[in-house]
């Protein structure tokens, strides 16, 4: 599967597992959150990166506690109009200091990519049937932003007055 990572189209290096599929060795895996909770001890020493797939409504404190052992947090967007993932991403990039991959999965569409990335997402699995090439253009929709976000841009109101 191809995904967008760091604003480029790349082949996904992770294997996505459901609740029951055996965990392959030597390759990164992304598991449902509930499975990761159940198998976290055996996953810790496998020598390859592990990620989780979570809903935006997940209990933040529990997730934050797990972050140090996670390479990927994939947040599900059930509908593109549901904005909760944006706030969760900001919390993970902000106070929680997560620096691994933050991946948007689910109803992920081109016209939301720029704001998702500003909030801290750096990887995107697009909804089925969407052109990744088209979607890349979205990052160029706006070059300047008034306010700061997880991207730590400088707010425009702090710029010195001209002259």
């Amino acid at each position, binding site marked *: 599967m191809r995904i967008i990572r760091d604003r480029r189209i790349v082949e996904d290096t992770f294997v996505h597992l459901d609740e029951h599929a055996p965990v392959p060795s030597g390759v990164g895996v992304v598991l449902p959150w509930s499975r990761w909770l159940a198998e976290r001890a055996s996953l810790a020493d496998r020598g390859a990166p592990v990620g989780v797939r979570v809903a935006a409504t997940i209990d933040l404190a529990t997730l934050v506690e797990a972050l140090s052992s996670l390479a990927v947090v994939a947040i599900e967007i059930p509908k593109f109009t549901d*904005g909760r993932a944006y706030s969760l991403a900001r919390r993970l990039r902000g106070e929680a200091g997560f620096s691994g991959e933050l991946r948007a999965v689910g109803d992920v569409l081109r016209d939301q990519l720029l704001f998702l990335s500003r909030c801290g997402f750096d990887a995107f699995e697009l909804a089925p049937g969407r052109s990744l090439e088209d979607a890349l253009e979205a990052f160029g929709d706006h070059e300047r932003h*008034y306010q700061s976000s997880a991207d730590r841009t400088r707010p*425009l109101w702090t710029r010195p007055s001209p002259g």
Partner: protein
Amino acid sequence: MYRYDEADQQIVEERARQFRGQVERRLDGRLSEEEFRPLRLQNGLYLQLHAYMLRVAIPYGLLSATQLRQLAHIARTYDRGYGHFTTRQNLQFNWPTLTDTPAILDALASVQMHAIQTSGNCVRNVTSDPFAGVAADEIVDPRPYCEFLRQWSTFHPEFAHLPRKFKIAVTGATVDRAAIAVHDIGLRIRKDEAGRIGFEYFAGGGQGRTPVLAEKLRDFLEEADLLAYTEAVLRIYNELGRRDNKYKARIKVLIKEMGSAEFRRRVEAEFETTRHDPALRLDPEALARMKAHFVPPDYATLPDGQTALQAGRLGKDRAYARWLASNLAPHRVPGYAIVQLSLKSETLPPGDVTADQMDAIADLAERHGFGRILVTHRQNLVLPDVRIDALRQVHAALEGLGFATPNVDRVTDIIACPGLDYCDLANARSIPVAQSIQQTLADADRVHDLGPLTLNISGCINACGHHHVGNIGILGIDKQGEEFYQLTLGGSARDDASVGKVLGRALTAEEIPGAVERILATYAVLRSGADEAFLAVVRRVGLGPFKEAVYADHS
């Protein structure tokens, strides 16, 4: 007023280009209507009963003459020669085509305007006191804070998909002319004993099907923390606001269900994080730079003009005298007055202005003032800086344009939503009801004598016509496919904000003018004197006598 530099300009131009691309993808089918809908809404484009409607943002209601002329140009070129000013200080074009919209956005961008976030589930255009910067009772000019909020909320990446729309209103005066109690966030700017500026911070007010007055979150929030605190409120709402039922998705429902104490606790906890974010704190330099955009223009040094005003009010020219009494407001600078243009007459629907009238108003604003025009939430316009020695000239010019009806804040200064004539949400028509009431109350002396009185009409429970907070409210409802109207009395959008109470069974459109007439006659009998306003009488005597007057058998 706030003037764009190349960065602001780039943002509105990028937006126009982005929307042009989205329209192209909609037309070639790459975007479905379902996917396109939130995109066009966040650009103010609605699909209405007969056509698209484009809502243009007028941040805190402030326009330059150049901008108003451009709106006239757009009305002529892309619409049917008129525009409609709304209760949120915006302007709506009722007849644009989808394919023309990108060109309209370009035309707006060329005069530092846009349609960003005038609809959709996001932070909407920030509204304020229409007399901001000139009101005699102003404590602090609210416009710099409105502009900070505008910039902070414009394309805020985290809050573009809120559970529901979000409206912020700010007042900096003694009298609240911004209806802050019925907004998702309402701010009253104050000064503490040491002269420091801060905000009395309210949240959770709103109209719609569940009218609620806002709860106070803070007595005094420091000026520098405005954005940090607002970001905390929005984050809590974005995460916890209901998304299962659009009628329960506003922040007022979250606060009611959670309890205001718990909501406040969560906001304060979040604020502990956001307040330390330097990107949210407004430092003294940023505040000073923003305030410099709103320094007063070069007023002349003039005598106070009060003698001339008094003479005019007592003079033989009754039309002029009434106009001075009702359409003027006191200015902070001696020798100047704030002039309100009544967009409420029998000739045009409330809030409508033709392109030619827009041009003429722009000319007047330049000749009599500093080229500024304001929009009020009661759908009127304001010339904020008219010299008292020029009032006769201005009055004559406004009479010629049809905007000198001496009825501002009087019973015929009716707020009305577009209603079933335009809107696909409406249950009933609003505009013809407003016009029929205006026709039965054509006697200017009588309207004048009835004193301050607000009458607001909404064509459906969404309450765009603010019926809940009208002293007299009229709500259009649908009963088995027929239009009926419910009357409420006792609402107010001012400092003494309250939600009106239903008077009795709904009436037909034909019955409404007579019922209003009987309510007014009852008031005239019951008032203790000319100083006791309609609202005061309703609060003193209750609904009983009015109910009796409207529903007793009159045959």
